[in-house]
């Protein structure tokens, strides 16, 4: 049961990030960036598909599609940062950068998991995430060290999104159990590495690291911001309205 929940957390993070990012398709600031963001979104859908497939295997009765399309808001375990509105391009880049930096460290560790499937999925995802990190990192620097306006905007994005970064490093009873079994990752131990990546990029981008104040929490228990409900209603509309629809 814990393994199922743990796998769903990873799957949901990818799925919700992917769905959110797909909102940029045809609306990107340039043709090139439009395709770049859509590519990243597709990478994340692919990762979600892998982890949901494994969840379905563990569960034994529900399919990957059932998990994606037939769960309600409170049954999703993605971190709150992944469900936030796209906002302007800078908002999206900051979220992508924070998540990619975390995912990079997380999958590096998870690829050493004793669970063979999780380890294989992590190794595959890691290659993609490295590019997501590189791409978002260079945009952080370009916008931070760009014009006066771009600097101002991205600093505002940083400040408003910062409150969602505490969740990365939380450890609840399921995380502790999975870590003790050598299956899961000790999220708290990733903090140093994440700080290092973030601080280095912020310095190069001439941006200021926000102060740690109030941090959002709750997604591991299925508590979300209001953004998730709207996202799900769009994502799940078709399979719910036409349960027998086929590709």
């Amino acid at each position, binding site marked *: 049961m814990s393994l199922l929940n743990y796998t769903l957390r990873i799957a949901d993070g990818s799925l919700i990030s992917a769905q959110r990012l797909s909102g940029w398709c045809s609306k990107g600031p*340039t*043709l*090139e*960036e439009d*395709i*770049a963001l859509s*590519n990243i979104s597709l990478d994340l859908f692919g990762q979600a598909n892998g982890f949901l497939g494994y969840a379905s295997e563990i569960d034994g009765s529900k399919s990957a599609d059932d998990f994606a399309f037939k769960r309600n808001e409170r049954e999703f375990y993605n971190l709150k940062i992944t469900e936030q509105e796209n906002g302007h391009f800078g908002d999206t880049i900051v979220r992508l950068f924070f998540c990619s930096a975390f995912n990079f460290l997380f999958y590096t560790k998870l690829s050493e998991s004793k669970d063979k499937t999780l380890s294989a999925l992590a190794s595959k995802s890691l290659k993609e995430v490295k*590019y997501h990190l*590189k*791409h978002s990192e*260079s945009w952080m620097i*370009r916008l931070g060290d760009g014009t006066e306006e771009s600097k101002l905007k991205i600093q505002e994005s940083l400040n408003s999104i910062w409150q969602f970064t505490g969740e990365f490093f939380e450890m609840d009873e399921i995380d502790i159990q999975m870590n003790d079994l050598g299956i899961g990752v000790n999220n708290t131990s990733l903090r140093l590495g994440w700080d290092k990546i973030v601080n280095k990029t912020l310095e190069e981008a001439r941006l200021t690291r926000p102060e740690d104040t109030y941090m959002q929490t709750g997604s591991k228990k299925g508590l979300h911001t209001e953004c998730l409900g709207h996202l799900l209603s769009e994502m799940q509309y078709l399979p719910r309205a036409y349960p027998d629809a086929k590709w």
Partner: protein
Amino acid sequence: MSENTDVWEVFIQSKNGLAHKHVGNIHATDKEMALQNARDLYTRRNEGSCIWVVKSEYIISSESEDGEAFFDPSNDKIYRHPTFYTMPEGSKNI
């Protein structure tokens, strides 16, 4: 596109050892963006193992009005083709 965006030509090497081939162009403001955009636009379907990008302004093209002077003189010099040699016995390729 802002005024400081340049056009870059993209060359993809499909396999190690083969020549890079021109595939098209992209817009970018710096080298890194040019490489990433080229990667995102031109290698989505497993086309490449290496990418070159070069600002279009650095590519010098011959002009079509120079075509006669540039290329016609080689038309009647068939002896420049290596087809007048006898193949040594036993060799398959030279």
